[in-house]
């Protein structure tokens, strides 16, 4: 193609152009109706920060309520709505779109050496749908909210008197956003790669996004039909899930978890992708076992469809189904384990700098290891019976979701912040925030393992003073305040950097993938000429420290 005939081997750093994607056009409309993937990524980023803050405050409220037995700050009805909303907001509004739609949208086309995603208008539509879904969810909350838990189990959800239909429709709409993002990414990764960008030269973040997108496309429609059936159950009284009408309530759980278990990997896989980028860049070393990490992403994506029944070990599903699901669950543990050990091994003989993104990455490594290992208890039938629906599960998935994905999200945000805005943040404050969050996280969630395995059920508004759970709840609540402190430091630091931050160079971390080839912030269409890639994304030179990312031949003039 045209790029083949391009002869511009000289790669030059510096010489920033004054026009970039941020100041190329002005006005609110130029943002709301942009089809530039970078702008859409930023809009996602800020919306998602907002939803994360909302979900976070709900979590603080939950923790505060549990500080003492009995009523502390709210009654049971309010509590049930708050914890439900916390789950819904964090799952559907923060963590599922978090890394793919915000960071992925911004970075992925740059990493591929493409000028945009394959369907820019669809990308914008996907953002608009996300906003509509978010507004619907918030409206539902103001209109009375729902108290079903984010899982909407029937027949409770199909019989109680609350805004279930509206909330399911909100999740239904959000599902479309997720499907379109996934679809766009799959096509982009297949069709839009720069010359020379073969599958084994793809950055691992792109591999992870690819695996994620497969799940988004394959699983989300089932969530759609599940929620539709639930709504029909309420509106028309269809009865498929209602035993009083001849249906089977356990069937709803099959439907729900067919999506929602793979969705767990929609949440964690992109985080793993970010990890691979951070660990290599900050140890300045080639990743250990590139192929194993890339393929394990795909393996996780596929196996994730086979294990949903481990959410249903005590639901009354058959013992045979339990056995099969338990077995398959252990298979999915293996690829995750491979990733962890490979990241750890990548550090070996590297040149490690503990910049803020790396601190987040190391937090991920530790916390995700704990989260993953405690999953073994829940995959084994014998122990799961005892631990199911207790705080042990709550702690486990927070270690994976928050200790994993959220840490990766913040790490990635710090990593690409200079690329996004062309500004550096205060490094000390950023590290301080990361360490504070790490400490606060453990103080919050580790006690929950102990009280969980000692029998404290989840989704409880109240507990008995004599049960001995109170001290754990109190430690946990104090931990949530430390977490809040860390988050505040991070937010202040990042936002003040937009104004006062130092100018960032095009490649402040001396990383090796293509997004660092273009200037910071990038020009409007990413690259003037599509670069030609000649080597992998992690070829950190041993002899000398300078080279263009992926040996690319062309870039900004």
């Amino acid at each position, binding site marked *: 193609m045209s790029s083949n005939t391009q002869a511009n081997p000289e790669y030059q750093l510096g010489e920033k152009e004054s026009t970039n994607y941020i100041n190329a056009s002005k006005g609110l409309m130029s943002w709301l109706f942009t089809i530039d993937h970078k702008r859409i990524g930023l809009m996602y980023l800020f919306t998602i920060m907002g939803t994360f803050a909302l979900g976070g405050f709900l979590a603080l409220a939950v923790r505060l309520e549990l500080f003492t037995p009995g009523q502390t700050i709210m009654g049971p009805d309010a509590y049930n709505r708050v914890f439900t909303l916390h789950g819904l907001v964090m799952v559907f509004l923060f963590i599922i779109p978090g890394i793919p739609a915000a960071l992925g949208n911004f970075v992925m086309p740059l990493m591929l050496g493409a000028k945009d995603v394959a369907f820019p208008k669809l990308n914008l539509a996907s953002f608009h749908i996300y906003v509509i879904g978010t507004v619907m969810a918030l409206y539902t909350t103001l209109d009375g909210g729902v108290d079903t838990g984010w899982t909407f189990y029937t027949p409770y959800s199909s019989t109680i008197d609350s805004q279930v239909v509206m909330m399911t429709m909100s999740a239904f709409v959000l599902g479309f956003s997720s499907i379109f993002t996934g679809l766009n990414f799959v096509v982009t990764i297949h069709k839009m790669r720069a010359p020379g960008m073969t599958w084994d030269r793809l950055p691992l973040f792109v591999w992870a996004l690819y695996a994620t997108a497969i799940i988004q496309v394959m699983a989300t429609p089932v969530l759609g039909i599940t929620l539709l059936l639930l709504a029909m159950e309420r509106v028309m009284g269809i009865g498929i899930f209602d035993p009083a009408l001849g249906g089977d309530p356990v069937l709803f759980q099959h439907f729900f978890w067919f999506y929602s278990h793979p969705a767990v990997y929609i949440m964690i896989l992109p985080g793993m992708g970010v990890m691979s980028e951070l660990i290599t860049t900050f140890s300045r070393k080639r990743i250990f076992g590139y192929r194993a990490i890339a393929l394990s992403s795909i393996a996780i994506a596929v196996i994730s*469809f*086979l294990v949903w029944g481990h959410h249903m070990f005590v639901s*009354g599903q058959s013992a045979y189904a339990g056995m099969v699901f338990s077995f398959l669950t252990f298979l999915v543990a293996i690829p995750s384990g491979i990733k962890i050990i490979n990241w750890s091994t990548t550090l070996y003989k590297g040149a490690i700098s503990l910049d803020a993104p790396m601190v987040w990455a190391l937090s991920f490594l530790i916390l995700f290891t704990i989260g993953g290992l405690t999953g073994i208890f829940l995959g084994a039938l014998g122990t799961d019976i005892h631990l199911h629906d207790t705080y042990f599960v709550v702690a486990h998935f927070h270690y994976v979701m928050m200790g994993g994905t959220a840490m990766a999200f913040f790490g990635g945000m710090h990593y690409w912040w200079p690329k996004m805005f062309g500004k550096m943040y205060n490094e000390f404050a950023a590290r301080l925030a990361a360490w504070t969050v790490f400490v606060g996280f453990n103080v919050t969630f580790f006690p929950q393992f102990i009280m969980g395995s000692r029998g404290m059920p989840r989704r409880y508004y109240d507990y008995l003073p004599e049960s001995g759970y109170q001290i754990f709840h109190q430690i946990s609540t104090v931990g949530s305040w430390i977490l809040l402190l860390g988050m505040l430091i991070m937010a202040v630091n990042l936002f003040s950097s937009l104004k006062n931050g130092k100018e960032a160079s095009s490649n402040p971390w001396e990383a090796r993938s293509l997004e660092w080839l273009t200037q910071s912030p990038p020009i409007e269409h990413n690259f003037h000429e599509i670069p030609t890639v000649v080597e992998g994304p992690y070829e950190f030179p041993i002899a000398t420290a300078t080279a263009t990312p992926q040996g690319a031949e062309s870039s900004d003039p």
Partner: protein
Amino acid sequence: MSQHDTHHDDHGGHHVTPLWLYHLIFGGLLCLTVITVWIAQFDFGPANTVIAMFVATIKASLVALFFMHLLHDERLNALTFGFGLLFVCLFFLFPLVDIGTRTYIDPIKDNASILKQEKIVKAQEVHAKKHKKALGNLSNLYNRSFMNVAEDEAEAKPVPAATTEPVEGDSTAK
């Protein structure tokens, strides 16, 4: 361009299927539809569904391979579709495994059938006591097909004066 895995000049929608093939496939689909309807008259027991699905799958394959060009299109598209069908199979597989094996280990037997049997046994007891004769009449109807009992018989009956018993009372109380 060689880096783009799917760029081949002879592919990518440039394959034009000859007209006669479209007509042939259309004819085949019509025939298969007739076969499905015809074969549905016979009762093969549980195999009914299997046979119907087999014919439907042939029809669907014809549509997908020729009308939708999967046969000559980029392989990736066929792969995508096949991958989707794989997940559909999984979606069927596990709930059915669950529902089909609920009786296997659980010593209480099939939960659903317990409920059903309770109902049946109870109703049968009441029934057998009071209406032995009526039960005998049931067997007379055994071979009468659903369609045959149709309108004529039902329509012929006059609407009688309402007898007073609990059914009516309950339904109108509200």
